């Protein structure tokens, strides 16, 4: 992938594509962003043209700013030209290039992922949503290095992914804590592998358990003595304590009841705001994806692919039932439904 760098005079660069937003009768902010993003995927320099300075359009510069894409707005006789330049490699935490994955099944090959291209910036919170069997968990496994792509390449933290590594720790749905260890020992597990001194190990474990909101009197408990929510808190602490550059989360809250899940969503947003860790979060629940993600990737199946991308521009902390959350959720759900695929719209439906 080529890099156009540094961008000196944006408006002097020849735009590869012009998208005219004037034609949109009622430009829905999501539509604008979606069109822009789609165009950006194929072009390095883009010009968006609008005939008013609408509230709808201001979202585009905002998302450019967040992603670190240089942009510039020029007004000419009541027409606003917005130049956007894609700066691909500069701070990409994760790059997935033309990745496909096929599995051998009884009567031949099944394509689970088809030609996935994806770039995730440092500090981005990306959620991946799709119905079961769309390959979203497979993608996570490939990024984690637990599985190998059939074709294509994955780069994480500037290095080709060849196998699992503690720079990309996974938080699983459930049952991944070690029952033979106490809560604290579970959190210390990875540090022990790194040969961290016992004293430091213990302090770090305590700090991170505190961060995820697990009080000290549970630190010596065994896993089976904890509730589902507490287990996932421990799992989160166990991953965070490794201080991974990328945190991969595979439906970590799917098995929890609604109240617990919402409190963990709050907790995760808080932790992300504090740490600005790069997080890739897989879920089958659209509302959860909207609440947590800066960017929602919608997967479709047969074969698994990224169907659409949505920037979620809502103030944090976000909560279920918030009007904007509701709007985005509805919008994305409708889009998925058009495809005839089933997902959970609101969280109640998931239980």
């Amino acid at each position, binding site marked *: 992938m080529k890099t156009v760098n540094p961008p000196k005079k944006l408006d002097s660069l020849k735009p590869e594509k012009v998208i005219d937003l004037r034609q949109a009768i009622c430009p829905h902010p999501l539509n604008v962003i979606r069109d822009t993003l789609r165009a950006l995927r194929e072009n390095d320099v883009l010009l968006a043209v609008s005939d008013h300075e609408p509230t709808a359009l201001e979202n585009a510069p905002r998302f450019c700013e967040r992603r670190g894409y240089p942009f510039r707005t020029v007004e000419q006789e009541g027409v606003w030209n917005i130049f956007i330049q894609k700066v691909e490699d500069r701070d990409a935490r994760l790059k997935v290039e033309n990745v496909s994955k096929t599995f051998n099944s009884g009567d031949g090959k099944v394509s689970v992922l088809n030609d996935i291209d994806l770039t995730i910036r440092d500090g981005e919170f990306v959620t991946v949503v799709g119905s079961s069997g769309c390959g979203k968990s497979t993608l996570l496994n490939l990024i984690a290095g*637990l599985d190998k792509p059939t074709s294509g390449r994955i780069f994480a933290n500037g290095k080709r992914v060849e196998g699992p590594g503690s720079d990309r*720790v996974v938080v699983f749905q459930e049952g991944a804590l070690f029952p*033979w260890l106490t809560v604290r020992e579970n959190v210390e*597990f990875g540090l022990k592998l790194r040969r961290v001194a016992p004293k430091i190990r213990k302090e770090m474990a305590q700090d991170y358990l505190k961060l995820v909101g697990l009080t000290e009197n549970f630190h010596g408990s*065994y896993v089976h003595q904890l509730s589902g929510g507490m287990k996932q808190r421990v799992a989160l602490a166990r991953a965070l304590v490794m201080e991974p550059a990328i945190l991969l989360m595979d439906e970590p809250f799917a098995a929890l009841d609604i109240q617990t899940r919402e409190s963990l969503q709050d907790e995760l947003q808080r932790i992300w705001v504090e740490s600005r860790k790069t997080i890739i979060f897989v879920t089958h629940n659209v509302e959860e994806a909207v609440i947590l993600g800066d960017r929602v990737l919608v997967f479709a199946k047969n074969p698994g692919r990224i169907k659409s991308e949505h920037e979620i521009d809502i103030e944090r902390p976000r909560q279920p039932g918030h009007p904007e959350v509701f709007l985005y959720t509805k919008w994305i759900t409708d889009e998925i439904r058009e495809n005839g695929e089933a997902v959970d719209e609101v969280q109640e439906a998931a239980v």
Partner: protein
Amino acid sequence: MKRKVILLTVFYLLLIGIWQGVAALGIWPPYLFPSPSGVFDSLLAGFQDNSFTIGILASMKRVLIGYFISVAGGLLIGLAIGRVKVLDETVGTIVLGFQALPSICWLPIALLWFGLSESAIILVVVLGSLFAVTIGVDAGVKNVPPIYLRAARTMGAHGIDLYMKVIIPAALPSIISGLKQGWSFAWRALMAGELLYVSIGLGHLLTMGRELNDISQIIAVMIIIIVIGITVDRLVFTKLENRVRERWGLLNA
């Protein structure tokens, strides 16, 4: 708990009482049907002239050496066939086959290889329990939830760490079952071996009892064998098993 103790005490006192009663009736001669008091006297005499103590020590030494070798070998083979598919498909079948072979069937070969020596009888003990341990370890390793391995690998575990810190602890409940079963097989194999092959030991004491027509001694030695077997099983393995199951959260699951 208290109820159980009383119940058992009453039951066994009653049993011994009936036994004593039947013996006192004199239907069968005492060299065919001993009385409990006769057995008790034999026990006492056996420990007083140290013949029982020497026998117990000789047997325990053999079973411990043999069992130790079995555990070491069983852990290695079990881990290997549990993790490597091609070994499971090849070596695994041998393990299953030999497990079906009563351990005493190894004695003729053992005698040919090692002659009338300690090594021969230890070989019988080893081959008696090795496969039970192996199968326990193998089953445990195969049943380790893959998610533990995946989780450990994303935290940077690989190679020997994966075995020592994840696979073995995760398989421990099943490994302990294998060890327990291996122990009882080892104990049985030893007794069978000692009965057929004359040297010092509890099995030998049984043979001696038969040769001397001393049925009281036979019963006394049988009681010792039962007591040792149960004691080790209860005090070592059941305790260990319960602790592991409790910690793993398997008890109230």
